[in-house]
């Protein structure tokens, strides 16, 4: 699904050249759930920007779902972001003046889909927020906002979802719930890539990439936490219980 070959990225800061990435080779198969870790300044944000087609590498080859995206124009990249990628940001990045439904429908508008609100409702249902469709982001709790952001990321059914510290701004309990949604997406076949600082978050994934000083330091695969498997299946199957309205209200209160 994702195929990076000797990717480098160099920034010019005045006279100085900063080498953010110094030749990365990463291969991620379809359906994997991968955590990316590394200290600040390690280049993981740069990597995510390149993986997310928000930025272009200085050199190297990037195949996304078989398509060579390293050489695409700005509009070409916009189209790839729209069709093949879903973003989830640490700070949610929702449009404050728009309702949850309109926020979720946003990528569909740029895709030119005929009935964006119908699909947006379906996406909100998948994250258990259909009853909050007409609320503005300011009327939602942090966890609910992040679920709106996830609904926006998956509304176009992209093969890859990229999440940049999706639980960074949430308390651990809400964070757990968000991670369960990612796990569920992974089980449904979506490739999930997640940048994180926390090992507990990384433990939800099946593979860990450690980045340091612009190079891949460690690439390890492991079995998911024993606790995850059986239990999550049950909870995710019945998404309604995880995101039940009663529980939402309690969350808003707190």
């Amino acid at each position, binding site marked *: 699904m994702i195929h990076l070959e000797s990717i480098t990225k160099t920034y010019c800061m005045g006279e100085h050249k900063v080498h953010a990435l110094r030749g990365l080779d990463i291969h991620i198969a379809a359906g994997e759930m991968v955590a990316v870790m590394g200290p600040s300044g390690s280049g993981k944000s740069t990597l995510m*920007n390149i993986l*997310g087609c*928000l*930025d272009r590498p200085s050199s190297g080859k990037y195949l996304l779902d078989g398509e060579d995206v390293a050489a695409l124009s*700005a*509009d070409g990249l*916009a*189209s790839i*972001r*729209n*069709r093949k990628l879903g*973003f989830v*940001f640490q700070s949610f*990045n*929702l*449009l404050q*003046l*728009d309702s949850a439904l309109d926020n979720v*429908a*946003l*990528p569909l*508008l*740029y*895709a*030119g889909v005929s009935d*964006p*609100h119908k699909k947006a409702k379906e996406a909100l249902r998948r994250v258990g927020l259909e009853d909050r469709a007409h609320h503005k982001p300011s009327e939602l709790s942090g966890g609910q906002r992040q679920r709106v952001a996830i609904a*926006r990321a998956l509304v*176009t059914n992209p093969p890859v979802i990229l999440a940049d510290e999706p639980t960074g701004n949430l308390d651990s309990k809400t964070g757990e719930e968000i991670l369960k949604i990612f796990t569920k997406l992974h089980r449904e076949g979506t490739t999930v890539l997640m940048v994180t600082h926390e090992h507990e978050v990384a433990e939800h994934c099946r593979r860990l990439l450690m980045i340091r000083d612009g190079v891949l330091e460690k690439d390890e695969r492991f079995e998911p936490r024993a606790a995850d498997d059986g239990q999550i299946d049950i909870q995710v199957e019945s998404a309604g219980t995880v995101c039940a309205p009663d529980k939402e209200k309690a969350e808003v209160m707190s």
Partner: protein
Amino acid sequence: MNLFAQLFRVAFNSVAHHKLRSSLTMLGIIIGVSAVITMVSIGEGARRQVSERIQGMGTNLLVIRPGFSRRRHVRSASVNTLTAADALAIEREISDAALVAPEAGKSAQVKYLSQNTNTTVLGVTPPYLEVNNFELSEGSFFTDADVKSRSKTAVLGATAYKELFDSGTAVGETIRIKGVNFKVLGVLTAKGQQGFRDPDDMILVPLSTAQKRLFGVDYLRAINVSVVSESKMESTQAEIEALLMRRHRLSPGQEPDFNIRNQKELLTTMNEVSDTFTNLLAAVAVVSMLVGGIGIMNIMLVSVTERTREIGIRKAVGARGRDVLFQFLVEAMLLSVIGGLVGIGAGFAASRAVAAGTTWQTAVSPASVVFAFAIAALTGVFFGLFPAMKASRLDPVEALRQE
């Protein structure tokens, strides 16, 4: 909901969200549009007023006056070049001259009982009435027989009547002009002030009476000629010129000792003058629109900076450069179109207010409304383009980093 409806809604939300800022931005356009409409309506009103007055005098009128056309300031040196015989010759020889009305006259003291006034006493013939578009409000006009017999009869202009009789009965009364008794036959309907001239401030007497009995002159002040149709104005003017040159024994190269004023030319000139006036007013208003446009650009640039993160989000989920470009263009256009519509309303109101509050006439011309609105919309596109392009070129990574 398609992309365009969404763009429109986003733009509308953004305008509505910043009410004060939006209305201040629109103010420039509102003032510009309403100024164009009001100014042009004043200019147009003036033009109509002038042209109605000139048409009131008759557009198929040629006025022949003595004097050198190129040296108007020394005309007094040759006031005696036109004679009644010239008028007769025109009547006889120029086939397209429908009516010929010679006039002679001077200002004179006129008395009725204890009332007296200084007015112009004009010696004329019966066609004068029709040629100059005068009508009788009461009584009758003197006849050709009166002219022949030098009868002492008079017809009063509306102003002269008011000065002498206020509103009493005039027909049948006797007035004294330069010490000579005249019987009043009729009173003319008022035409109203024409610029600095009051055409009603006069008394008409038979031509021969004025020339022989009153002033002792045999020359004319003017010959008014009404031409059969407007299209014959130029040719008739040329024929009369040739005829008078011959009669005055002037060779074709010499300067004529008379000049012919063409009422149609006067109308054209007046229209040109008022068009220039209107254009000048419109130009001033367009400048204010330009200032309004710069205001829009300013606010849009602020808006782009303020919404950098929003642009980043939109780009991250797949908005292309042109999607963002259109979004900001639609917003700029919305500002100018709303401003334009409000400005049209304000323009109509201001034009009414001017007409009600002053003696000026105003007429809102539909063309100026369309023109002002089109300029407003174009201002939106033109001044919105630069900020919109700036927004569309933002780098998504940079934009998302913005707080």
